[in-house]
Protein backbone atom coordinates (compact mmCIF):
# COMPACT_ATOMS: atom_id res chain seq x y z
CA UNK A 1 0.00 0.00 0.00
CA UNK A 2 2.85 2.32 0.92
CA UNK A 3 4.45 1.85 -2.49
CA UNK A 4 1.42 3.33 -4.26
CA UNK A 5 1.78 6.53 -2.22
CA UNK A 6 5.54 6.83 -2.32
CA UNK A 7 5.56 9.86 -4.62
CA UNK A 8 3.19 11.75 -2.30
CA UNK A 9 5.24 10.77 0.75
CA UNK A 10 8.49 11.97 -0.86
CA UNK A 11 6.91 15.27 -1.97
CA UNK A 12 5.55 15.80 1.55
CA UNK A 13 8.96 15.11 3.09
CA UNK A 14 10.46 17.82 0.86
CA UNK A 15 7.74 20.40 1.57
CA UNK A 16 9.71 22.01 4.42
CA UNK A 17 13.10 22.48 2.82
CA UNK A 18 15.37 21.07 0.10
CA UNK A 19 17.15 17.89 1.20
CA UNK A 20 19.35 15.04 -0.05
CA UNK A 21 18.08 11.45 -0.25
CA UNK A 22 19.35 10.32 3.14
CA UNK A 23 17.72 13.32 4.85
CA UNK A 24 14.45 12.66 2.98
CA UNK A 25 14.40 9.11 4.37
CA UNK A 26 15.13 10.36 7.89
CA UNK A 27 12.38 12.94 7.57
CA UNK A 28 9.85 10.33 6.36
CA UNK A 29 10.79 8.07 9.28
CA UNK A 30 10.59 10.93 11.80
CA UNK A 31 7.30 12.39 10.61
CA UNK A 32 5.60 9.00 10.29
CA UNK A 33 6.75 8.06 13.80
CA UNK A 34 8.78 5.19 12.31
CA UNK A 35 5.68 3.67 10.65
CA UNK A 36 7.06 4.20 7.13
CA UNK A 37 10.23 2.18 7.18
CA UNK A 38 10.88 1.66 3.46
CA UNK A 39 13.87 -0.11 1.92
CA UNK A 40 16.01 3.03 1.87
CA UNK A 41 17.11 2.75 -1.74
CA UNK A 42 13.47 2.88 -2.90
CA UNK A 43 13.36 6.61 -2.31
CA UNK A 44 16.04 7.36 -4.92
CA UNK A 45 14.18 6.05 -8.00
CA UNK A 46 11.15 7.99 -6.73
CA UNK A 47 13.23 11.18 -6.46
CA UNK A 48 14.54 10.59 -9.97
CA UNK A 49 11.07 9.92 -11.37
CA UNK A 50 9.61 13.03 -9.72
CA UNK A 51 12.46 15.09 -11.11
CA UNK A 52 11.75 13.77 -14.61
CA UNK A 53 8.11 14.75 -14.16
CA UNK A 54 9.23 18.29 -13.32
CA UNK A 55 7.93 18.08 -9.74
CA UNK A 56 11.43 18.29 -8.23
CA UNK A 57 14.61 20.09 -9.19
CA UNK A 58 18.03 18.92 -8.05
CA UNK A 59 21.67 20.03 -7.93
CA UNK A 60 24.96 18.60 -6.77
CA UNK A 61 26.46 20.02 -3.58
CA UNK A 62 29.37 18.92 -1.42
CA UNK A 63 28.80 17.46 2.05
CA UNK A 64 30.91 18.34 5.10
CA UNK A 65 32.81 15.10 4.60
CA UNK A 66 33.67 16.21 1.05
CA UNK A 67 31.40 13.73 -0.74
CA UNK A 68 29.21 14.92 -3.58
CA UNK A 69 25.52 14.80 -2.79
CA UNK A 70 22.38 15.55 -4.77
CA UNK A 71 19.95 17.95 -3.11
CA UNK A 72 16.30 17.97 -4.18
CA UNK A 73 13.72 20.74 -3.88
CA UNK A 74 10.06 21.02 -4.82
CA UNK A 75 9.33 23.00 -7.96
CA UNK A 76 6.18 25.09 -8.35
CA UNK A 77 4.51 22.13 -10.13
CA UNK A 78 5.68 19.92 -7.28
CA UNK A 79 3.97 22.16 -4.71
CA UNK A 80 0.78 22.10 -6.78
CA UNK A 81 0.97 18.29 -7.10
CA UNK A 82 1.50 17.98 -3.34
CA UNK A 83 -1.52 20.22 -2.65
CA UNK A 84 -3.62 18.08 -5.02
CA UNK A 85 -2.43 14.86 -3.34
CA UNK A 86 -3.23 16.38 0.05
CA UNK A 87 -6.77 17.35 -0.97
CA UNK A 88 -7.46 13.91 -2.47
CA UNK A 89 -6.03 12.22 0.63
CA UNK A 90 -8.15 14.33 2.98
CA UNK A 91 -11.33 13.46 1.04
CA UNK A 92 -10.36 9.79 1.07
CA UNK A 93 -9.53 9.83 4.81
CA UNK A 94 -12.82 11.62 5.61
CA UNK A 95 -14.77 9.05 3.56
CA UNK A 96 -13.05 6.10 5.24
CA UNK A 97 -13.50 7.80 8.63
CA UNK A 98 -17.24 8.11 7.96
CA UNK A 99 -17.41 4.48 6.91
CA UNK A 100 -15.69 3.25 10.06
CA UNK A 101 -17.71 5.58 12.32
CA UNK A 102 -20.92 4.02 10.97
CA UNK A 103 -19.47 0.51 11.36
CA UNK A 104 -18.43 1.25 14.97
CA UNK A 105 -21.90 2.69 15.68
CA UNK A 106 -23.61 -0.41 14.25
CA UNK A 107 -21.28 -2.72 16.19
CA UNK A 108 -22.01 -0.81 19.41
CA UNK A 109 -25.78 -1.07 18.72
CA UNK A 110 -25.65 -4.84 18.22
CA UNK A 111 -23.87 -5.31 21.57
CA UNK A 112 -26.64 -3.54 23.50
Amino acid at each position, binding site marked *: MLKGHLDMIVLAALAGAPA*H*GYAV*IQEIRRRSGGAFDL*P*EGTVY*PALHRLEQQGLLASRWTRSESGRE*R*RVYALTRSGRRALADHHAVWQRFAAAIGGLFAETAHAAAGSHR
Partner: protein
Amino acid sequence: MRPPDPIADYLDALARALAFDPALARRVAKEAEDHLREAAQTDGGDADAARRAVAAFGDPRALARQYAAAALTARTRRLGAGTVMALAGIFLAMEGRVAWYGLMQWGLADELKAMSAIALPLDRYAFLLALALAIVGCVYIGSRRAPPELHQGYGQELHRAVVLCAAAAGALIVAVTTEAVLTILRLLAAEPSAAALVPAATMVVEAAGAGALVWSIRTAFRRAMQATALL
Protein backbone atom coordinates in the same frame (compact mmCIF):
# COMPACT_ATOMS: atom_id res chain seq x y z
CA MET B 1 44.46 -6.82 -1.97
CA ARG B 2 41.76 -4.32 -1.05
CA PRO B 3 40.23 -4.63 2.45
CA PRO B 4 36.61 -5.90 2.42
CA ASP B 5 34.27 -3.02 1.72
CA PRO B 6 30.58 -4.06 1.58
CA ILE B 7 29.62 -0.60 0.29
CA ALA B 8 32.05 -0.74 -2.64
CA ASP B 9 30.85 -4.27 -3.49
CA TYR B 10 27.24 -3.11 -3.35
CA LEU B 11 27.99 -0.11 -5.59
CA ASP B 12 29.64 -2.44 -8.14
CA ALA B 13 26.54 -4.64 -8.16
CA LEU B 14 24.30 -1.58 -8.54
CA ALA B 15 26.40 -0.26 -11.45
CA ARG B 16 26.17 -3.66 -13.18
CA ALA B 17 22.38 -3.71 -12.73
CA LEU B 18 22.15 -0.18 -14.18
CA ALA B 19 24.37 -0.97 -17.19
CA PHE B 20 21.43 -0.14 -19.50
CA ASP B 21 22.10 3.57 -18.84
CA PRO B 22 25.76 4.40 -18.06
CA ALA B 23 25.11 8.08 -17.25
CA LEU B 24 22.31 7.14 -14.84
CA ALA B 25 24.52 4.43 -13.32
CA ARG B 26 27.24 7.01 -12.53
CA ARG B 27 24.78 9.41 -10.95
CA VAL B 28 23.03 6.72 -8.90
CA ALA B 29 26.37 5.28 -7.73
CA LYS B 30 27.42 8.72 -6.42
CA GLU B 31 24.12 9.24 -4.62
CA ALA B 32 24.05 5.71 -3.20
CA GLU B 33 27.64 5.99 -2.00
CA ASP B 34 26.91 9.25 -0.17
CA HIS B 35 23.85 7.66 1.43
CA LEU B 36 25.56 4.39 2.43
CA ARG B 37 28.70 6.05 3.83
CA GLU B 38 26.60 8.48 5.88
CA ALA B 39 24.29 5.71 7.14
CA ALA B 40 27.28 3.53 8.09
CA GLN B 41 29.04 6.44 9.79
CA THR B 42 25.92 7.32 11.80
CA ASP B 43 25.63 3.67 12.87
CA GLY B 44 29.17 3.32 14.24
CA GLY B 45 31.32 3.39 11.13
CA ASP B 46 32.60 -0.21 11.27
CA ALA B 47 32.21 -3.03 8.72
CA ASP B 48 29.03 -4.32 10.40
CA ALA B 49 27.48 -0.86 10.14
CA ALA B 50 28.38 -0.82 6.44
CA ARG B 51 26.72 -4.22 5.99
CA ARG B 52 23.58 -3.01 7.78
CA ALA B 53 23.49 0.12 5.61
CA VAL B 54 23.74 -2.03 2.47
CA ALA B 55 21.02 -4.42 3.68
CA ALA B 56 18.69 -1.49 4.44
CA PHE B 57 19.24 -0.01 0.98
CA GLY B 58 17.64 -2.97 -0.80
CA ASP B 59 18.37 -5.39 -3.63
CA PRO B 60 20.34 -3.63 -6.43
CA ARG B 61 18.43 -5.40 -9.22
CA ALA B 62 15.07 -4.41 -7.69
CA LEU B 63 16.30 -0.81 -7.49
CA ALA B 64 17.52 -0.95 -11.09
CA ARG B 65 14.06 -2.12 -12.20
CA GLN B 66 12.56 0.95 -10.50
CA TYR B 67 14.97 3.25 -12.34
CA ALA B 68 14.54 1.38 -15.62
CA ALA B 69 10.88 2.21 -16.22
CA ALA B 70 11.34 6.01 -16.10
CA ALA B 71 14.80 5.98 -17.73
CA LEU B 72 13.72 3.82 -20.68
CA THR B 73 10.52 5.83 -21.14
CA ALA B 74 12.50 9.07 -21.33
CA ARG B 75 15.02 7.49 -23.72
CA THR B 76 12.30 6.06 -25.98
CA ARG B 77 10.52 9.43 -26.04
CA ARG B 78 13.79 11.08 -27.08
CA LEU B 79 14.19 8.40 -29.77
CA GLY B 80 10.67 9.12 -31.09
CA ALA B 81 11.33 12.86 -31.16
CA GLY B 82 14.76 12.23 -32.73
CA THR B 83 13.16 10.12 -35.47
CA VAL B 84 10.73 12.90 -36.35
CA MET B 85 13.54 15.48 -36.29
CA ALA B 86 15.74 13.28 -38.52
CA LEU B 87 12.85 13.03 -40.96
CA ALA B 88 12.36 16.81 -40.90
CA GLY B 89 16.08 17.42 -41.50
CA ILE B 90 16.19 14.93 -44.37
CA PHE B 91 13.05 16.43 -45.88
CA LEU B 92 14.66 19.90 -45.82
CA ALA B 93 17.81 18.50 -47.46
CA MET B 94 15.69 16.83 -50.19
CA GLU B 95 13.71 20.00 -50.82
CA GLY B 96 16.89 22.08 -50.82
CA ARG B 97 18.39 19.87 -53.52
CA VAL B 98 15.26 20.05 -55.67
CA ALA B 99 15.24 23.86 -55.28
CA TRP B 100 18.91 23.96 -56.30
CA TYR B 101 18.19 21.91 -59.45
CA GLY B 102 15.46 24.43 -60.28
CA LEU B 103 17.71 27.40 -59.63
CA MET B 104 20.50 25.95 -61.76
CA GLN B 105 17.95 24.83 -64.37
CA TRP B 106 19.49 21.42 -64.00
CA GLY B 107 17.16 19.13 -65.91
CA LEU B 108 17.16 15.38 -65.91
CA ALA B 109 18.94 13.56 -68.76
CA ASP B 110 16.54 11.66 -71.06
CA GLU B 111 18.00 8.25 -70.18
CA LEU B 112 17.25 8.91 -66.47
CA LYS B 113 13.64 10.00 -66.98
CA ALA B 114 12.22 6.43 -67.19
CA MET B 115 14.10 5.39 -64.07
CA SER B 116 13.04 8.54 -62.28
CA ALA B 117 9.37 7.80 -63.08
CA ILE B 118 9.67 4.60 -61.02
CA ALA B 119 12.08 5.85 -58.36
CA LEU B 120 10.36 9.11 -57.41
CA PRO B 121 7.02 7.58 -56.34
CA LEU B 122 8.98 4.91 -54.42
CA ASP B 123 10.97 7.68 -52.73
CA ARG B 124 7.86 9.73 -51.93
CA TYR B 125 5.78 6.85 -50.54
CA ALA B 126 8.68 5.44 -48.56
CA PHE B 127 9.21 8.86 -46.99
CA LEU B 128 5.50 9.29 -46.21
CA LEU B 129 5.42 5.80 -44.68
CA ALA B 130 8.46 6.68 -42.55
CA LEU B 131 6.75 9.89 -41.39
CA ALA B 132 3.50 8.10 -40.55
CA LEU B 133 5.34 5.37 -38.58
CA ALA B 134 7.43 7.94 -36.71
CA ILE B 135 4.35 9.95 -35.74
CA VAL B 136 2.53 6.80 -34.59
CA GLY B 137 5.64 5.81 -32.58
CA CYS B 138 5.86 9.26 -30.99
CA VAL B 139 2.16 9.36 -30.08
CA TYR B 140 2.33 5.80 -28.75
CA ILE B 141 5.29 6.39 -26.43
CA GLY B 142 3.98 9.84 -25.49
CA SER B 143 0.75 8.26 -24.27
CA ARG B 144 2.53 5.71 -22.01
CA ARG B 145 3.00 6.50 -18.34
CA ALA B 146 6.04 4.94 -16.73
CA PRO B 147 5.06 2.57 -13.92
CA PRO B 148 6.98 2.72 -10.61
CA GLU B 149 8.83 -0.44 -11.63
CA LEU B 150 9.68 -2.05 -14.96
CA HIS B 151 7.57 -5.15 -15.65
CA GLN B 152 7.18 -7.50 -18.59
CA GLY B 153 4.09 -5.77 -20.03
CA TYR B 154 5.63 -2.30 -19.95
CA GLY B 155 8.87 -3.67 -21.41
CA GLN B 156 6.82 -4.92 -24.37
CA GLU B 157 5.15 -1.53 -24.80
CA LEU B 158 8.55 0.19 -24.93
CA HIS B 159 9.78 -2.46 -27.37
CA ARG B 160 6.76 -1.77 -29.60
CA ALA B 161 7.61 1.96 -29.69
CA VAL B 162 11.24 1.23 -30.63
CA VAL B 163 10.07 -1.20 -33.35
CA LEU B 164 7.86 1.58 -34.80
CA CYS B 165 10.88 3.91 -34.88
CA ALA B 166 12.96 1.13 -36.47
CA ALA B 167 10.27 0.57 -39.12
CA ALA B 168 10.25 4.34 -39.79
CA ALA B 169 14.03 4.26 -40.13
CA GLY B 170 13.76 1.31 -42.55
CA ALA B 171 11.33 3.20 -44.78
CA LEU B 172 13.52 6.30 -44.52
CA ILE B 173 16.57 4.33 -45.65
CA VAL B 174 14.64 3.20 -48.74
CA ALA B 175 13.80 6.86 -49.49
CA VAL B 176 17.37 8.09 -48.90
CA THR B 177 18.89 5.24 -50.93
CA THR B 178 16.56 5.99 -53.85
CA GLU B 179 17.49 9.67 -53.63
CA ALA B 180 21.18 8.78 -53.46
CA VAL B 181 21.01 6.58 -56.59
CA LEU B 182 19.15 9.28 -58.55
CA THR B 183 21.51 12.01 -57.35
CA ILE B 184 24.65 10.02 -58.20
CA LEU B 185 23.33 9.18 -61.68
CA ARG B 186 22.37 12.83 -62.23
CA LEU B 187 25.82 14.02 -61.15
CA LEU B 188 27.59 11.44 -63.32
CA ALA B 189 25.54 12.50 -66.34
CA ALA B 190 26.43 16.18 -65.88
CA GLU B 191 29.63 18.10 -66.60
CA PRO B 192 31.79 18.36 -63.46
CA SER B 193 31.19 21.75 -61.83
CA ALA B 194 31.08 23.48 -58.46
CA ALA B 195 27.27 23.42 -58.70
CA ALA B 196 27.44 19.67 -58.01
CA LEU B 197 28.70 20.35 -54.49
CA VAL B 198 25.24 21.36 -53.23
CA PRO B 199 23.45 18.11 -54.20
CA ALA B 200 26.45 16.12 -52.95
CA ALA B 201 26.38 17.99 -49.62
CA THR B 202 22.63 17.46 -49.19
CA MET B 203 23.11 13.74 -49.84
CA VAL B 204 25.81 13.63 -47.16
CA VAL B 205 23.40 15.35 -44.75
CA GLU B 206 20.67 12.80 -45.53
CA ALA B 207 23.01 9.83 -45.17
CA ALA B 208 24.38 11.20 -41.88
CA GLY B 209 20.84 11.78 -40.54
CA ALA B 210 19.74 8.25 -41.47
CA GLY B 211 22.97 6.79 -40.03
CA ALA B 212 22.56 8.66 -36.73
CA LEU B 213 18.98 7.44 -36.49
CA VAL B 214 20.00 3.81 -37.09
CA TRP B 215 22.71 4.17 -34.43
CA SER B 216 20.21 5.59 -31.90
CA ILE B 217 17.76 2.76 -32.57
CA ARG B 218 20.51 0.16 -32.18
CA THR B 219 21.50 1.73 -28.83
CA ALA B 220 17.85 1.86 -27.69
CA PHE B 221 17.38 -1.85 -28.54
CA ARG B 222 20.59 -2.82 -26.75
CA ARG B 223 19.69 -0.86 -23.60
CA ALA B 224 16.14 -2.20 -23.58
CA MET B 225 17.54 -5.75 -23.77
CA GLN B 226 19.90 -5.04 -20.87
CA ALA B 227 17.03 -3.64 -18.80
CA THR B 228 14.61 -6.47 -19.54
CA ALA B 229 17.33 -8.92 -18.40
CA LEU B 230 16.56 -7.57 -14.89
CA LEU B 231 13.06 -9.09 -15.03
